[in-house]
């Protein structure tokens, strides 16, 4: 496989870019691919805490692009999973600390050293996003089934298209199947109709995500939850496998008693 660089982005903040990046990075590394998780959010770094690697950071992305240290030296190796490395963002610098040219050069170097690189983009459509996306070949757009998030996703998709990223694929995060059923949440199909891009996965809204972030242990490390399974499936699809979408209905909504419970709204 040729080395691949994928930017994970969304436009809107708080829809789960970093969680998605962390979980996919772990799953891809577990699948045997040498994986770099790059925090592209200079000044507001978060990927380190979501991955649980915040205590092991010495150097960061800005140090690398400024030539203060070698890429290998700045990459934090994850001891729980073989093949997984984090390039943290600088916390005490701003987005202006990195130029587009520097990012392109960094991406070339990442290509030489890793099978797959995931770049966690900052929210927004400004330079920070552009820097995160500029060196990537492909894009994963994360959105939630909310009007504001889908609207921003549309804007970002337009920008990614004009930057010739391909493929651009969608992760629909935090879907609540019960709400979809009752007609109070936009469905997968609605979102795809509106955004007209390829779907790469649907992640159910799951309390296990919050718990895993609390602990700094991405779900794909070994959690049994539905969300963990959904993230693993996205990773498999990235690797070209054909994996059917999960049945997201909670088990307690299946069968006769499930039907009764739903009918009574319990």
């Amino acid at each position: 496989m040729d080395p691949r660089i994928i930017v994970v982005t969304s436009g809107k903040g708080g829809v789960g870019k970093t969680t998605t990046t962390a979980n996919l990075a772990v799953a891809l590394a577990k699948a045997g691919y040498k994986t770099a998780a790059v925090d592209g959010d200079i000044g507001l770094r978060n990927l380190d805490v979501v991955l649980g690697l915040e205590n092991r950071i010495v150097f960061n992305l800005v140090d690398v692009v400024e030539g203060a240290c070698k890429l290998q030296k700045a990459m934090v190796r994850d001891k729980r999973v073989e093949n997984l490395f984090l390039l943290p963002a600088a916390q005490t610098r701003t987005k202006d600390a990195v130029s587009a040219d520097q990012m392109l050069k960094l991406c070339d170097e990442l290509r030489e050293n890793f099978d797959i690189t995931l770049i966690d983009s900052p929210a927004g459509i400004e330079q920070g996003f552009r820097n995160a996306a500029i060196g990537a070949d492909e894009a994963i757009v994360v959105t939630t089934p909310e009007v504001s998030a889908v609207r921003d996703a549309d804007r970002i998709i337009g920008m990614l298209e004009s930057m010739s990223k391909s493929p651009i694929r969608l992760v629909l995060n935090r879907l609540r199947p019960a709400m979809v059923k009752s007609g109070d949440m936009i469905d997968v199909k609605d979102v795809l109709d509106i955004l007209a891009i390829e779907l790469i996965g649907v992640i159910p809204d799951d309390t296990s995500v919050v718990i895993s972030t609390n602990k700094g242990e991405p779900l794909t490390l070994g959690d049994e939850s539905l969300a963990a399974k959904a993230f693993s499936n996205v990773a498999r699809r990235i690797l070209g496998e054909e994996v059917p979408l999960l049945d997201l209905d909670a088990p307690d909504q299946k069968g006769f008693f499930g039907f009764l419970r739903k009918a009574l709204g319990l």
Partner: protein
Amino acid sequence: MNFLARLFQMISKEKSKETAKKRLQLVLIHDRADISPEMMENLRRDLIGVISNYLDIEEEKIELDFSKEERSVALVANIPVKSVKRRTERRAEPA
């Protein structure tokens, strides 16, 4: 959600999901065309001005909006015509 709320929702006309979808589609048409409501109003006024030179139209019944397919957007105008002005009328106007 309690039973009554559910029942009420079943009878009520539109689920919030449908409202969300419609609102999104509309807002995205404008986003994608990059046209503000103000610009839309100006466009409407200018269109009326130009068309009125040739046709007698019912201004208040004009429908002007975007329709979308995938990522492309079309401007659709429905302009009821009251009468067609006589050609001589137009020619008689000073150049």
